[in-house]
């Protein structure tokens, strides 16, 4: 299976499996090396990177919600130069394309990021993350700033708040694909400090809202859409494909059940694991078949009798 996930042209991006991690959920590609077999994924999207280093936000970072979580980080990262020097070698060994997520800070900084990436063979493409409250004009400026400085394929991740408004302008400006959408911004009360904390909201309830956006926008824009938002199972991922997405990004479930990322990728890649007994050695995953613990439990039960 080969899937073209950006608009057709000489710089189009092809992947083998229509599943990849969302920026911010998979680090720079090696954090889950003992859990997720990266070669089963379509691509790796890096954590968000800015031109300059960014420091972590102050105050409360995490507020548990019902079936979800609000996270507030301030998007800390050591800046693009440090990230490239630290991960270049590791990325050169990646079995799948590496797509760098860059944050739309200013068109100038974004342009510099793009030209830095243009020089890096190990990076296959760019994902540009637009901030909430970005207007159409400004979004187009960001896209053009990237495209003027690189030939690499460009995906643009739309903020949920303005996805409907930005989709067409961003496509017109030349983006190769749209990621619909980033986790929405929210505010929640920190039960300890008593303060209202801003952040991003993650969890399964985001999914129906994102799925509706994907279904809606897939009929309106003529570049590929990559669906994202609260996907927590293979069926969820297939729903996005059915609604019109060319591929999907998996977000916070990777934090909670990292193996789920690979399970979804195998499923949509046509490698569904259905039974323990038929599984190839490398297809075993948690909960499948025999284990020493299962035997230990049996002996516990035998002692009870």
């Amino acid at each position, binding site marked *: 299976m080969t899937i073209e996930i950006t608009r057709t042209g000489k710089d189009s991006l092809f992947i083998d499996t229509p599943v990849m991690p969302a920026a*911010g959920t998979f680090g720079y590609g090696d954090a889950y090396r*003992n859990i997720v077999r990266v070669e089963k994924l379509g691509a790796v999207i890096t*954590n968000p990177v800015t031109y300059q280093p960014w420091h972590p936000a102050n105050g409360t970072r*995490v507020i548990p919600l019902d079936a979800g979580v609000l996270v507030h980080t301030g998007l*800390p990262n050591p800046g693009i130069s440090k990230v490239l020097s630290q991960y270049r070698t590791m990325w050169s060994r990646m079995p799948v394309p590496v797509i760098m997520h860059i944050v739309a800070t200013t068109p100038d900084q974004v342009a510099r990021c793009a030209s830095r990436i243009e020089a890096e063979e190990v990076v296959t493409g760019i994902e540009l993350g637009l901030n909430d409250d970005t207007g159409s004009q400004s979004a187009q400026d960001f896209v053009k700033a990237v495209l003027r400085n690189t030939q690499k394929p460009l995906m643009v991740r739309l903020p949920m708040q303005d996805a409907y408004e930005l989709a067409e302008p961003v496509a017109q400006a030349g983006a190769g694909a749209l990621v619909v959408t980033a986790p929405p911004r929210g505010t929640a009360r920190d039960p300890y400090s008593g303060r209202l904390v801003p952040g991003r909201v993650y969890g399964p309830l985001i999914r129906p809202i994102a799925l509706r956006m994907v279904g809606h926008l897939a009929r309106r824009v003529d570049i590929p859409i990559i669906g994202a938002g609260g996907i927590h199972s293979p069926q969820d991922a297939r729903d996005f494909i059915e609604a019109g997405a060319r591929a999907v990004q998996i977000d916070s479930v990777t934090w909670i059940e990292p193996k789920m990322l690979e399970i979804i990728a195998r499923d949509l890649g046509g490698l569904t694991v259905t039974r323990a007994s038929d599984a190839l050695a490398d297809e075993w995953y948690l*909960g499948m078949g025999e284990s020493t613990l299962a035997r230990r439990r049996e002996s516990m039960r035998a002692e009870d009798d």
Partner: protein
Amino acid sequence: MIAQLTDAMQQTQALIQRVRRINAHFQHVDLGIEEQLGDIKPGQSLLVRQTQDWQPYLREQWWPVRIAPNLVVVERPGHIKYEPGEFISVLGPVGSFFRFRRSLRHVLLIAYDTPPTPLLSMIPLLIANQTSLTLVLLGEAAAYQTDHLAGQVEVIHGGADLEWEHRIMTVGLADQVFAVARPDDEIRRFGDIWRMFAELRADIRKNYLFGVFQSIQPCGAGVCQACMIRLKQGTALTCVEGPTLDLSQVQL
């Protein structure tokens, strides 16, 4: 601080083998662990899920108090019901292990407004090493009942104001100090502890006074950045470089 990279975490399961009430507030749960979880070392923890659904969403951080081959004993609040024979989902090991000085004669443990649970896994190791141990329970930590701790651990109950009997002597004796503080305002409380030590000692050298951080960890794997602590130079992720950080390097 450059990341002390431990080997990356595993996702596997553990078997609840035994549950014992140890006092009015806590129980000890024996977890049978899969070989693939590898060697867990004192200082590391597990991220645990018991539900199949998404409520609660985040994993709980479970702190070992004793580690043996294929077995980890964790200390959990007493009001939660665990069934022997139940499987739980485990991510781990999380974080880096405690680093001790080569010649270590006395270790001081401090629990400030929080149970000392995250510190306890070092006790068997240090006792085996003939290191003497003092545990100071400050503020709300005074409610922690210590009958189940090894007899070799000297337990001192202090006040809410970071005062305790023979404080100057205990601090003077200690080669290393490890502290936990109530997580809702950890940085401020570690600051209190730091200032208390700074009053007692002319200078606090490196590798002497450590905080064991209990930040909420959405991923535990160094990817979500939510557990990041500002250092005087740079930053540290408590889930990778922590939970134990040298307080002389932390921006308090």
